[in-house]
């Protein structure tokens, strides 16, 4: 796969290859230092550890033989980390206080629960927005930075409308919720003068999930790997890049069989190394996703121009982590 596309690249520049060159042993040596420093600092080193981790992963992810760069630093993320811990500390204190009052004073419990849920639902759109702004601005390739142009207001509007529809449809709408958030996020993502968009539809995801769910039950779980493959395709293959009026598309050729090998292999690695093999799990997963991904169309990697401003606010990078939000 690799070989054919590199030879192709000499004849045409419109099909840049994507590749992940990271090695488990290298990442492992980074993670060991990270974990040791986190233990010594009682976890405060986390933002620096995360920065180093991302710097490595980005550095080893290549497009057209040039690597991406993550410019984020531990110092930037540390401030966000502390703010995040503070906000979560307050929210959880309220919740725990309410729980302890639940028997004697159900009213207080109800109010505390409400405050907690309201707090979370305000934080989620803020965190998505903040993370996208920070993460894209700290990502560059050949010196060209990504960027995020979305506004917090439009994210709020979209989030609450979709949350409302999801609640009144008892969760059925969640497939459209997920898709609409992706549409909003990608629509506002810039890669220099190129612009992303997402063309997946909620109905597609809904059908895919119903089919995956039923077949997984009928095949006693075996189909779950093909379901996961379908989800990856849905998330990747619907990403478009527009550059100077021409559209290209990301395309994943990952098969269910490959995903099966990846997932089972990862599980075995984790079990037999007592978790120490986590670095290999990361590099294997990255390699499977990235090496099977192509850009189809007339994307010209040599024609990107710098368009974004410098941006350094990392407040919500870690908060998104704490809420387990992973978008890309």
């Amino acid at each position: 796969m690799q070989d054919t596309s590199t030879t192709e690249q000499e004849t045409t520049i419109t099909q840049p290859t994507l590749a992940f060159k990271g090695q488990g042993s290298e990442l492992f040596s980074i993670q060991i230092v990270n974990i040791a420093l986190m233990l010594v600092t009682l976890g405060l080193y986390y933002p620096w550890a995360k920065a180093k981790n991302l710097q490595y992963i980005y550095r080893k992810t290549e497009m057209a033989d040039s690597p991406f760069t993550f410019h984020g630093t531990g110092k930037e993320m540390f401030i966000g980390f502390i703010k995040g811990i503070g906000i979560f500390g307050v929210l959880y204190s309220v919740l725990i206080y309410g729980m302890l009052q639940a028997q004697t004073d159900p009213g207080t419990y109800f109010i505390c629960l409400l405050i907690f849920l309201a707090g979370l639902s305000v934080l989620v759109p803020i965190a998505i927005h903040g993370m996208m702004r920070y993460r894209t601005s700290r990502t560059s390739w050949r010196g060209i930075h990504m960027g995020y142009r979305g506004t917090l207001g439009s994210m709020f509007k979209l989030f609450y409308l979709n949350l409302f529809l999801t609640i009144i449809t008892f969760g059925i709408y969640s497939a459209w919720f997920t898709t609409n958030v992706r549409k909003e996020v990608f629509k506002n993502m810039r890669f220099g003068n190129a612009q992303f968009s997402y063309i997946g539809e909620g109905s597609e995801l809904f059908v895919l999930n119903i089919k995956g769910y039923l077949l997984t039950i009928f095949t006693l779980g075996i189909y779950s790997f093909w379901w996961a493959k379908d989800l990856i395709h849905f998330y990747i293959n619907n990403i478009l890049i527009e550059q100077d009026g021409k559209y290209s598309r990301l395309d994943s050729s990952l098969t269910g069989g490959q995903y099966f090998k990846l997932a089972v292999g990862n599980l075995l690695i984790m079990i037999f190394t007592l978790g120490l093999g986590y670095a290999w799990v990361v590099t294997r997963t990255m390699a499977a996703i990235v090496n099977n991904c192509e850009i189809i169309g007339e994307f010209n990697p040599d024609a990107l121009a710098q368009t974004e401003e410098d941006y350094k606010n990392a407040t919500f990078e870690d908060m998104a982590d704490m809420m387990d939000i992973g978008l890309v």
Partner: protein
Amino acid sequence: MFEGKYYNGRTSKGMPAFITLEPTYIRVAWQAGGESGTEIWHLSEIHKSEFNDANTILEYGPFPRQSISVFEQGFKEALEQQYGDAEFLKSSYSSFAKTGITGLVAGGLSLLALAIVLFVWGVPALAEKAAAHFPEEYERALGEQLHAQMMLDQTIDSAKTEAIQDYLAALEVKSDFPITVTVVKNDMVNAFAVPGGFIVVHDGILDEMERHEELAGLLGHEIGHVQMRHSTKAITRSLSYYMLLSILFGDVSGIAAVIVDNASTLHSLEYSRTAESDSDKAGLELLVQNKLNPKGMVWLMERLNSDEPEFLKFISTHPNTSDRIKNIESHIRKTNYKPEPNPELEAAWAKLKDR
């Protein structure tokens, strides 16, 4: 002089460039189309460069950064030879990776050993220290909440509860906390202690008992758990494990879940073997203190023993019941007094059995 590509930070077009390593700066002479130019890179403004492979990348200056990419062999070595001490080449991560397989294996194993030490000794020891310093009022308040929450899905036998409280009142008890005993309808032979002096007894275990000394022994055992703060310590311990894991994996959302989870599973909390045998000793002491037959403790154990299916004994993490009996009997041999009948306790016991 090395050949590479120069990126000016304004477009992604790579420009062929000749790179020269001068003593105090790097010279980048680029050429693209009809244009050409020369950049002088001062060492102090070159950004830290880590994780290079066949491709060595250097970045320079403020946003938007310029960069060079060099595939030519020998460039990395030349950089290190020329600017070995420069800030942009320093990396603690790379230097650890350079220790090779031995370093990685040693690092991994010592990390694993550290984790085991921390989990097996460090966390429990710290948690117990912390639990021992909880103010009593706080522990009582926590216990009240937990107890109330547990009673929600239990049927309280109020007649038996009243009778068992009368029995307790006639006993001579030493405790930091006021002891509140509740009898609930449940066939399982079980009883457990909630922090702050709350004891819950299943009527299933009362039905099995034939002599009141067994009840005294049971109460003594549970009061022992309360007095030695075993359940508070167990909660603190599982909470600290969780906090340690969430620090390592950066997830805080589960801490509240652990507290709530513990409230509902208090009755199946695992105490350590030492905690159980210490409480057995406390039960025995209560019998001795009240001049009751110390054999009560052994009889109690036999009730527990008969309940446990044979096959479970191997896998049970609870201390083996026959070991506990042996342990108690060795303590009984050290006691030296004549049990005296206690009419008040017997009357309360009769009343309890009646209901």
